[in-house]
């Protein structure tokens, strides 16, 4: 198939434009950010994680406040928090596959709060956006661009993956992007340009699928 992805993450990715490209080019190729910068140590031994395994209540507050800016829910449709993306991230961080990212979350969330003079969640939305823009530009001490890109990748995973992983609650992510959900058959009219396909709102869990480790 005509896959598009880039290999380079850790070494060659130190300059911004390249990183930007890498992050954006993870189009068909996959979760490069966690994949190559920080990824898994041992996939096979990964255990299904208990909920709330990785982050403290305080860290969850900060994470939710960030996610509420990354994909806001204040326009009348669910955003990342309403879709439980924080639940997805916390659950994944509790698995061996994401274990290496956990210290990065601990350290970055703490540093972000510090940059917010104590509490990121307590800032106004405008202030939060400005601070996140500085993080994205790599100019906040202790919160690397690498962390930001990992967070964006995790946000996309949580928002747009099958709800059985804990995010995409009520298919909010799939409705947002116009993905009908798991469907075993597409008819010719459903593949025409201009047809609005009725959402199937189906998770693979409904036919026995289980989260991959």
């Amino acid at each position: 198939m005509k896959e598009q992805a880039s290999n380079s993450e850790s070494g060659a990715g130190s300059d911004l434009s390249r990183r930007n490209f890498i992050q954006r080019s993870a189009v068909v190729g996959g979760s490069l950010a966690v994949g190559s910068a920080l990824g898994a140590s041992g996939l096979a031994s990964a255990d299904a994680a208990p909920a709330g395994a990785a982050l403290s209540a305080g860290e969850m507050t900060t994470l939710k406040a960030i996610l509420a800016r990354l994909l806001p829910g204040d326009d009348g449709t669910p955003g990342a928090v309403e879709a439980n993306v924080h639940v997805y991230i916390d659950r994944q961080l509790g698995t061996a596959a994401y274990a290496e990212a956990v210290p990065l979350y601990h350290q970055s969330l703490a540093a972000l709060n510090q940059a917010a003079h104590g509490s990121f969640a307590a800032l106004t939305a405008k202030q939060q956006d400005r601070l996140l823009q500085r993080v994205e530009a790599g100019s906040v001490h202790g919160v690397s661009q690498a962390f930001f890109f990992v967070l964006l990748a995790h946000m996309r995973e949580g928002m747009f993956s099958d709800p059985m992983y804990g995010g995409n609650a009520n298919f909010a992510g799939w409705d947002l992007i116009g993905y009908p959900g798991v469907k075993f058959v597409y008819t010719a009219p459903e593949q025409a340009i201009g047809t609005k396909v009725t959402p199937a709102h189906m998770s693979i869990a409904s036919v026995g699928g289980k989260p991959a480790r």
Partner: protein
Amino acid sequence: MTTLPKADVVLIGIGAAGGIASYVLTKAGIKVVALEAGPRLSNAEFAKQLDELGGYQGRNVLGAPKVNHEIPSWRPHVGAPVQHLRPPYAILMANLVGGTSVHFGAQFWRFHESDFKVRTYTVERYGTKALPAGSALADWPVSHADMEPYYDQVEYLIGVSGRGGSNPFEAPRSRDYPLPPVRSMGSAELATKAMRELGYHPFPQPAAVLSRKFNGRPACTFCDFCDGFGCWNNSKSSTLVSAIPAAEKTGKLEIRPNSRVMRILTDSAGNASGVEYLDSNGQMVTQPAAFVILSTYTYENTRLLLLSRSSMFPNGLANNHGQVGKYYMAHYYPSANGIFPGKPTNMFSGTASQGVAMDDLNADNFDHAGLGFIRGAEIGVSNETRPIGAAANVPPDVPMWGAAYKQWLRQYGNSIITVSGQLENIPSVHNFLDLDPTKKDPLGMPVVRVTYDLHENEMRAGNYMLKKATEILKAMGATKTWHYPPSPLAINSHAYGGTRTGEDPATSVVDPYLIAHEVRNLAVLGASTFPSTTGFNPTCTVEATAWFAAEHIAKNFHKLAV
């Protein structure tokens, strides 16, 4: 350590190439023991795996038995720091009976006549000065005419859909495809029209997916989970549902799943004498054999040879000429995206092999004079996108987060069409595989280290193809287009080289019949033997060359076996 009774042929890995070889050998009456690192799964299991995160987007569940733990490391050139890529990492191979043919995208191409004589054609038309610096461009030792009967037999054994003659650049074929093309879809129709307007010759993509019922298997239902997934409907023509069951019917194929070969053994005369493998209970077992076939995909083909050292082969098996690992190649996939506002393009549907392709800018099908590069790319349009991937595919001037990002996704998330190609990669003396000196897999075996970069020919050709893809999108009515510059995709699902085929042991590892120059009872199958990549996907030719080699081995078994 247990030593088992001697086998006629031991097949290491039963994927695309091994599956075909098992069929040809057993049909000829030869007994085959296939050792496969992964399990045997069925469509009932695949039916529970329609999950982007588990399959394509990075977890690669079908690679959990092995490849996810041995991802090659990469450096762009000698002396550059090595990058250790870690799982989850998308587009890796699958470990199970049927191999990667189980989760491949099923785009199924025969190569051109000029592909097999790529150096000769290039030099005759443009002179030796057109050969890129550092190029190791070589003709294949076989021609298209040699391969045509095997292409034909593969297509009719497994079930391939397409329309012979619809591509004016296609080499002569002895008969049409066994099945008509798979259904077209909206984006492909739009692209077909635009390509025609621009003077190109579009045609339905050939697909190893059933357009109609074939050998008891049903037609494809276009579910959007093909590329990177096993087929729940048995419509994808993997070797798991075609060649392998047919081989088993002969009663001469024994498949041992969950059996990972660690080393190929040699005797004091330098012949292959069998293999050592970890069986499904984790016990090390010796399986002696009269003939050994290595068909474990490009990276493992080189790795197992390099790991199988002996006094006769101190630098790795079949490597006394230092050729194992040389001329590694991989595709770069130039692709451009366009927005079609207000219209769902229904890109979240279908299969990767459904769609339209054009061959006008591939191979030597166009005049390269003044362009500054040789060879080209097949270009086409397919759907089969999924939401996690799509959410990352936004134009460079759109933010990747915030209200504007969300608004963009809502407005255009399902209104995109991508025109993409696969660019021929010129073999280079600078691109090669060896063993990583530091990184090991969980069993303590060194992983492959890839030394690979795109060079000037690929950069120029890649940028040219991006320009052409953008023109097509504009002619289709895209209101906005975007793309990213060419970059090397070192670890690739289209990986080639390392055990090149050729007449000369000084510049190749295997002979024209894919038998090792240095070991008469060892064959190596797969794209690792290809002298060039072409601008097409590899697997049709992987299977045709495996058939060709297996037939030769069967015919000459008593001369070759030890």
